[in-house]
């Protein structure tokens, strides 16, 4: 018995397969989200990697921004429920989740059993999300992977005060033209993302172990900045980008179990 969760985000598509013992068989990511070939490719990729086929999957649950448009799902769950479920599976002691994805950020407060107690999402604009970092990486002639390493060399991070991504980009260009180092600007960008995301956490109420998920959690510079902003240690979920897909797979596993009873195989 296999269950599959797929998380179709705005910037990437993720898929996770669980076996009958609720163990992760595979987790795949394609950096293309809803409305692109990403959802199809991530399915092809995970089936190719595992040698499984769609007919081997008893239940498939979709989540993420593109969940309603993903064809072939048995059910759809919201990203909030799926991230909570996925993180609780990976880090049972987690009580606060900060998920920063391509164009949204979410703060989720969990109860002792992993149930969602409260959540907040960003509104009005995408500042403080992965898209913000992408724009800044481009103007700084670097890539998302190298930003964390460059951040460690900062000695005097600049202040990025604009909330709007486009104006913040202008601010970065202005800082560059005034001779600020790329490292200090990147650290400033990370601080800016952290400040916005932590505003959500503040609204939600920070409690217990804080876990970061989403693509941006792979950027250690942002994680360090969030840690400083919240003044506490931050855990990064293993394979943070697939936490939502994992949660969806767990819902699919429950459904499969219900449908098949205790049947295994």
């Amino acid at each position, binding site marked *: 018995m296999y269950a599959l969760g797929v998380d179709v985000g705005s910037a990437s598509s993720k898929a996770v397969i669980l076996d009958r013992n609720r163990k992760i068989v595979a987790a795949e990511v394609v950096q293309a989200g809803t409305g692109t070939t990403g959802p199809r490719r991530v399915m092809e990729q995970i089936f190719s990697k595992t040698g499984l086929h769609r007919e081997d999957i008893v239940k498939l649950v979709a989540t993420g*921004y593109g969940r*309603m448009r993903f064809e072939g799902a048995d059910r*759809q*769950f*919201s*990203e*909030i*429920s799926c991230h909570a479920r996925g993180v609780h599976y990976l880090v049972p002691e987690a009580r606060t989740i900060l998920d920063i994805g391509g164009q*949204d950020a979410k703060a989720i407060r969990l109860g002792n059993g992993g*149930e*969602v107690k*409260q*959540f*907040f*999402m960003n*509104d*009005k604009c995408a500042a403080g999300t992965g898209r913000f970092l992408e724009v800044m990486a481009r103007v700084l002639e670097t890539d998302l992977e190298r930003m964390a390493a460059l951040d460690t060399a900062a000695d005097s991070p600049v202040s990025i005060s604009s909330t709007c991504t486009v104006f913040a980009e202008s601010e970065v260009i202005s800082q560059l033209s005034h001779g600020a180092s790329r490292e200090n600007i990147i650290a400033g960008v990370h601080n800016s993302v952290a400040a916005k995301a932590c505003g959500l956490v503040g609204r939600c*109420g920070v409690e217990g172990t804080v876990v970061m998920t989403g693509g941006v959690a792979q950027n250690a510079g942002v994680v360090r900045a969030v840690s400083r902003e919240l003044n506490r240690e931050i855990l990064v979920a293993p394979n943070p980008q697939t936490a939502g897909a994992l949660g969806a797979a767990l819902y699919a596993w429950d459904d499969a179990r219900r449908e098949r009873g205790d049947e295994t195989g």
Partner: protein
Amino acid sequence: MRNVETILAQFKEIAANPRQAVADYRSETGKGAIGIMPIYAPEELVHATGYLPVGLWGGNQSINQARTYLPPFACSVMQQVMELECQGAFNDLAAVVFSVPCDTLKCMSQKWKGTSPVLVFTHPQNRGLESANRFLVEEYTRLQSRLEEITGVKISNAALENSIRVYNENRAALREFVRLAADYPQFVGAVSRHAVFKARQFMEKSRHTALVRELIGALTAQPLQPWSGKRVVVSGILLEPDGLLELFDELKLAIVDDDLAQESRQLRVDVQEGNEAPLYRLARVWQRMYGCSVATDTKKLRGKMLIEMAQKTGADAVIAAMMKFCDPEEWDYPIYFDELEKKGVRNLMIEVDQGATSFEQARTRLQSLAELL
């Protein structure tokens, strides 16, 4: 007797065609319409002239010309009103009655782009003093004389008393409808419920009351059925457009009561009967208003009110429908949010933009709430 569906269809038709409603009124009565800007106005005065009071609560169109006159952080209701002003949509109104309880309304009242005369009046900030009532009577007296000038109708005390009675009856009928809608979510979904309120803005109130009473009759003729979805209370300025309301229906979130400025806040306070002059009794309404972000509340009772509302209706959650860029509502939110949390009342905040065409983030938030209830 007409069925619920047919009556609701009529409300929806009227709600979607305000221009037709005004034209019909004009052809039937020979009188025109007077615009009523949000949020509170003594509509009874306008009604007493025989003109049709028409609510100007925005729309759902793309914003183009309004950007010339408003900053992007003005709320969407004002953006929509400004766009319609620029298009000349309000030019056939005999006048526009304008209250100014928030900063954006203050500014809007001074830059009306249409051709209709704008009748601005001010609510007193301090609502605890008797002098505040006297101040508002003066404002209403001034408004009354401007209305008389424009319409050529002398507003007699008898006409005003009649209008007060018509409005009180309308509010009572709607309050009864709100209670019934909570019992019949299978018949009255979020979109339909809103249409009943929305149509109120474009109908002469005694006619609206008659239609609401007909709906109440048709509803009560139906057997009560168990509801498999969840029950929520909504709070905010308004909950539009229909695309957002459709999510409530799709996710089976029945609106069992509301604290929306466009809806039940308009029904909250009746004009009291008594021997005082009708203008004085109209003015007293403002002092007796409660639980609204634009009416100064030194005791901050909105949270308590929402908790009671949720308890009374057996609601599973309270949803804050936060009007984007509405600072009075944003200021209230942290206070009642804390109170709801302390009482263990499930709650959610969604952002409302009247001109929105995509509701994916709202869907995520509402679906998440439905999943965790």
